[in-house]
């Protein structure tokens, strides 16, 4: 495997992506007045500088890692940034989101570099599985604490330190992925033993206990915090990982059944769940459906080629900078732009699963699978909600949406995937070298 080629590819792709983002930014700024915007300097610094920093970090710290993930993430992040800048400027009273987002991007890349520096070997994370599990639960409970907990837009998923609002749930997801991977690798043989329960093959409940507890706690916290999207994401993560670990499809069946029962219970018990569901089925003529209806109008206005950057009216869509940003992309870049975003995510999923397939240890394989699932499903859940394929649930579109916690967490996720990829490639190289030595010897 030509691993130096990977870095060259990465650099090439980064340059291409950056050119696209810079071009998009200039186009977005032009139609108003034909002057070069004054913020062009800092903007170029962010958009050109950050990918470069990340690239150099990968060269130094994970030189043999996959070369596709970083350029794709950086392209999505840049595209999202252009839209956030453009959307914020269109507001009558700009909320300064563009400036904040650039700070978050700097912090995100910093977190990326720090993760690569601190986690020198992904397998070592296996040791911290229970720590990670407890950390996940603690993070999830944090917003429920008095004083620091905050409810924003009906969801109590925020923690506030002075002026900084933060969603600990974004990091809890990563911790849970680490915990599940470590725990399932340890127990997977036991978990894979089926016991006949009537006509069904069921795993022994004894080994299932801790996982069910972790899952139950996560789910309860989510429901009490009214964060349906994350709840769905958690459950999917758990289900996928136990299925992949045990190679038992019965877990999928049992899990899906659990999901249906849980969903029905939530539908009966919580008015906000019922509301989401009703809105999904019939968004017209209801104030509640305003968001998805406006999103649909935005896509319709976009057509195949889009209205053009800065030529649409995406600010009509509520929370367009975060959850609904995919609709703004659909409006101004059209089917073509939306498809490009979809393809970028598919390529990232492909790269992530390839890393999982090639990883040497069971833990790394499971962790890579879990991280890719988090990324791929989170993107799917929110985009599907925006286009009314699924009920709308409030999660961010990874790398694209405005949102600091999400961006930070996703850069850490990216760093972990690259770390696993680098480990795998290094081990293969070592083995090849060892083989050559024995041949000589």
């Amino acid at each position, binding site marked *: 495997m030509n691993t130096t080629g990977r870095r060259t590819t990465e650099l090439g792709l980064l340059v291409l992506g950056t050119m696209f983002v810079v071009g998009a930014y200039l186009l977005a700024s032009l139609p108003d007045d034909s002057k070069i915007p004054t913020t062009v300097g800092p903007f170029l610094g962010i958009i050109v500088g950050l990918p470069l920093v990340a690239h150099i970090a990968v060269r130094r710290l994970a030189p043999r890692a996959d070369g596709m993930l970083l350029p794709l993430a950086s392209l999505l992040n840049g595209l999202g940034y252009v839209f956030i800048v453009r959307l914020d400027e269109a507001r009558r009273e700009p909320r300064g989101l563009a400036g904040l987002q650039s700070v978050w991007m700097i912090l995100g890349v910093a977190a990326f570099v720090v993760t690569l520096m601190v986690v020198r070997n992904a397998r070592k994370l296996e040791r911290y599985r229970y720590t990670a599990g407890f950390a996940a639960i603690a993070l999830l409970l944090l917003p429920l604490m008095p004083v620091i907990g905050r409810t924003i837009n009906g969801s109590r998923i925020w923690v506030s330190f002075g002026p900084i609002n933060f969603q600990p749930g974004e990091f809890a997801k990563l911790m849970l992925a680490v915990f599940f991977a470590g725990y399932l690798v340890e127990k997977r043989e036991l978990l894979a033993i089926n016991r006949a329960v009537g006509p069904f093959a069921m795993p022994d409940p004894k080994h299932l206990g801790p996982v069910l507890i972790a899952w139950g706690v996560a789910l309860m916290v989510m429901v009490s915090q009214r964060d349906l999207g994350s709840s769905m994401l958690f459950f999917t993560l758990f289900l996928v990982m136990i*299925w992949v670990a045990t190679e038992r499809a019965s877990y999928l069946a049992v899990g899906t059944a659990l999901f249906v029962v849980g969903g029905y219970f939530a539908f009966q018990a919580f008015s906000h769940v019922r509301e989401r569901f009703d809105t999904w089925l019939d968004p017209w003529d209801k104030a509640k459906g305003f968001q998805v209806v406006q999103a649909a109008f935005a896509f319709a206005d976009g057509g195949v080629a889009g209205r053009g950057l800065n030529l649409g009216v995406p600010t009509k869509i509520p929370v367009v900078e975060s959850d609904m940003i995919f609709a703004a992309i659909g409006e101004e870049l059209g089917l073509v732009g939306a498809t490009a975003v*979809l393809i970028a995510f598919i390529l990232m999923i492909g790269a992530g699963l390839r890393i999982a397939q090639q990883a040497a240890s069971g833990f790394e*394989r499971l962790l890579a699978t879990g991280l890719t699932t988090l990324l791929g499903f989170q993107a799917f859940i929110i985009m599907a909600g925006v286009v009314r394929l699924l009920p709308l649930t409030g999660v961010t579109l990874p790398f694209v949406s405005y949102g600091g916690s999400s961006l930070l967490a996703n850069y850490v996720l990216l760093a972990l995937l690259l770390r696993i990829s680098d480990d795998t490639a290094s081990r293969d190289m070592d083995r090849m070298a060892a083989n050559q030595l024995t041949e000589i010897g």
Partner: protein
Amino acid sequence: MSKQIRNLGVFLLVCYTALFLQVNRLTVFDAHDLQHKPGNNRAVERDFARPRGTIESADGVVLAESVPSNDRFRFQRTYPTKDLFAYVTGYYAFQLGSTGVERQYNDELAGRTLSFNLDQLDDLFVDREQVGNVTLSVRKDVQQVAKDTLGDRAGSVVALDPRTGEILALWSTPSYDPNLLATHDFTAATANAKVLNEAKATRARTFQERRFPGSTFKVVTATAGVERGGVTADQPSYPVRTSYQAPGRGRPISNFGGESCGGTLFPILEVSCNSAFAQMGTEDVGAAGMSQIAESFGFDRDIPLDLPGGVQSTFPVKAVSQDPVFLAQASIGQNAVQATPLQMAMVAAAVANGGKIMTPHVMREVHDEQGNLVKKYDQKTFSTPMSGDTAGLLRDAMVSVVRQGTATRLAEGLDGFVVGGKTGTAQLGSNPPRSDAWIIGFAGPPGEVPHVVVAVNVEGQEGSSEATGGRVAAPIGAAVMKQALTPPQRADQAEGGSAQGGG
């Protein structure tokens, strides 16, 4: 594990493919429907800060224009004629969206049609925003007469030229002042819209509401009789009686006031004889023929009027095919027969124009700012419900209704013109007796195709005799047609000429 990871990849790929397909649906397949959904005012929003062309009446009165404003939208849309043309121009508002001509010809007014774009190729380097000015066929003088004669009674007046389908007047009471909704004070606009909606003052009764047409529908039945039932001027002669009982059970169809009537086509139309027309529709024409003729006039069809939001008129096709009693009722415009005043004007237009209904429309021409013609309404035939011979016969019959029947007052002030018409009185309640008064009719110089057709509906009048239509509605129709037959005075010429160049 590798098999599971691969399957996971396949599953995610399926999910994303579903996403891709749904995005296709929104951006391409459903895009047109979504863009025309009520409540979608994105087009307005996009264009709101751009200049916009004027809307002018046929006699040169500015009905809508954009004047510079000092707020963030640069232009304020204003309607100098206030409520007079509200249902024609519609409004162009930020939060409420747009209606009427403002909506229908949005692309032309905003200067966004192909011909403009081609024109603009050499304008690329000139800093100018091209817009289109729309000239309508409606006339301010005719509209004003319609408004004044109807007064504060709820109702509708439609006047059109049967030869072209050009609408000359489209008035209904209550109306509203579009300026109230177009104001940039959005709080006020929303409040005004609420008040107007509660007063039901934003729906055009001329083409967005249905009423019972009463006896004016007998013109449709008569057409069916001649076309499908072998009815001529001489035969059959319907028995003189007070009521008609269709085969089957149900209440017989009685004549107004229990009077006896009957005879051939002309006399029964002159006195609007219920028993005779019920028999004609039920026995001579039949359910299929009545339904087909009604449909060819436009019932149960979308009328391609160039104003959005119109409703269909209805003929109870299913009911009449099941029960002759229903057919008898429908033949005299009862049962579930409902029509817009525009539809009834089209019925009169078919008779006036040799059997052919021209598609009704309000747009005549679009000019660019230099006065070059950019677009002209392409006149189309909507439908031909009857032959020229049938039309000639019915025309004579309707003329005799005015000469010696229920519609004599339709000829008031129209000396020297050939005038034909048919009254209608649609009973709404009997205690106290209230009814809708109708008239449909036409007028023109002798020996020519009539120049104007009119349909008038006055709602909820006291009394319920057949005379109500002739007493209440006919004078309005006469006054409107009289004005329409007077050559228009262009407002700018009257003021001594203006910059309207070319021609």
